[in-house]
């Protein structure tokens, strides 16, 4: 077995473990965050600051009775949680989480799959997630679940388009579909004020695109204010109303992992991906390692800064969830087709002009 293969296995393991461990952490963050924003304390009994609450929840999910209601279509009913969980894991594959390191003249990439069509892959797979929801809704044979599934499907339709269009701006600026190239672009200098240099972060060159993408990311991950597929107040729990125990937990895991991927994408496209956070360069220079060790250290710091960026956006998802009320269904459609679509088009036109006149 050569080094590349071993490294690939290590990467796979790392990404899968990292994604799974995001779930309990986010469960805790969400519950405590919600509580604190609503002037409550939230779960604080299990372990320090209630950190073990997620573990307790998981144990509860495992030990609950895993019943299948009599009226469901069993095969799609049982497949649906898997169908929504699998794409959630798959999308993260093309997101680079650190720069390359060189060992024995071999280049090692911190990205599970180096695809030239990086982006298209993400959009293709991410929209598969909705199949899980539709399957769950259809197999549950329940009006609420069906409504949730239908809503989710039409929501996907109206938000996938502006999402795809909003990203075209970044692709135009980078001239590549590859996320590695897009990250590399964002390390260049846009302009400088004195000795302070402002990098070409996506947010600076594509502010409008960023807003559209952010909005669509919320819709894509079925999070509030766009969680119409769940809609506790009108659909009770929507598509997963007939699910319990671990099957329900799998839908929840899929939601959180989708959130991680969405955060990773936002960070990669608009906030420089794994580029070091301000100040980290100074630390690296202070430690001053060269060669392979230096590379490893740099990769470690890059992973850390990418992790921090993702963490911020995960927190942002939670923050928005407990701030904004849910959209009404027609308002949601209006926003998607009548506001975000035209804005995304305008954004493309503007970017094309800027690229042609070599401003960015």
């Amino acid at each position, binding site marked *: 077995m050569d080094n590349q293969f071993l490294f690939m296995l290590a990467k796979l393991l790392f990404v899968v473990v990292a994604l799974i461990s995001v779930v309990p952490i986010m469960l805790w963050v969400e519950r405590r965050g919600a509580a*604190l924003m609503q002037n409550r304390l939230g779960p604080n009994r299990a372990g320090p600051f209630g950190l073990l609450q997620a573990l307790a929840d998981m144990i509860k999910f495992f030990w609950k009775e895993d019943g299948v209601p009599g009226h469901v279509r069993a095969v799609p009913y049982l497949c649906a949680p898997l169908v929504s969980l699998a794409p959630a894991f798959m999308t993260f594959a093309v997101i680079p989480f650190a720069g390359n390191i060189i060992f024995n003249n071999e280049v090692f990439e911190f990205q599970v799959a180096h695809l030239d069509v990086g982006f298209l892959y993400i959009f293709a797979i991410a929209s598969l997630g909705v199949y899980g929801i539709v399957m769950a809704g259809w197999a549950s044979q329940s009006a609420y679940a069906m409504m949730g599934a239908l809503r989710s499907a039409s929501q996907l339709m109206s938000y996938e388009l502006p999402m795809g269009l909003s990203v075209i701006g970044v692709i135009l600026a980078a001239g590549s579909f590859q996320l590695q190239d897009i990250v590399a672009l964002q390390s260049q200098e846009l302009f400088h004020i004195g000795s302070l240099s402002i990098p070409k972060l996506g947010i600076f060159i594509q502010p409008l695109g960023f807003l559209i993408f952010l909005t669509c990311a919320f819709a894509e991950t079925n999070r509030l204010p766009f969680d119409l597929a769940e809609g506790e107040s009108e659909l009770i729990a929507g598509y997963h109303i007939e699910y319990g125990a671990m099957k329900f937990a799998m839908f929840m895991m899929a939601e959180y992992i989708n959130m991680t991927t969405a955060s990773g994408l936002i960070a990669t496209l608009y906030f420089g991906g794994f580029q070091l956070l301000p100040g980290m360069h100074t630390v690296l220079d202070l430690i001053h390692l060269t060669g392979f060790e230096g590379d490893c250290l740099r990769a470690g710091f890059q992973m850390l800064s990418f992790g921090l960026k993702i963490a911020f956006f995960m927190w942002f998802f939670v923050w928005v969830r407990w*701030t*904004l009320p849910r959209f009404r269904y027609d308002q949601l459609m209006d926003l998607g087709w009548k506001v975000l679509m035209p804005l995304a088009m305008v954004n493309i036109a503007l970017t094309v002009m800027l690229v042609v006149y070599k401003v960015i």
Partner: protein
Amino acid sequence: MLLSKKKGFFTRIYIVEIIQGLAITLKNFFFSRKVTIQYPEERRAYSDRFRGLHYIKATNGVENCTACMLCPTVCPAECIHIEAGEQADKEKYPVRFEIDLLRCCFCGMCEEACPKDAIKLSAIYEMATHSREVLRKDMLLEQRGNK
């Protein structure tokens, strides 16, 4: 009636409003006073008139109750069961006095009806048990309050 208010451009694109909303939740997150009562350690202070677990008031170790049967009569849930008996120094007394707490609705009518100032509702509200036993006389005689 549905009224549509004319909103300004900035209100309509929502972005400013959303940022204001986010600021409010963030302020709450960090600075608001948390209203949670951490139950086993802290308890909510109830009024003295709170109607909780019953007890029969005793004077000098003898229950005040004379088994007059007014409380089982008035009880809307019909959950008081009394068996009266006689004693040398006290004409009538309850041999058996049971309250089925699972049926009781804590209305306090028994307390109001009692002519002997015997049956009382204390301020105790933690009544969860592992069994469905009724509240017997020996339990009732435990002095749970000073009403």
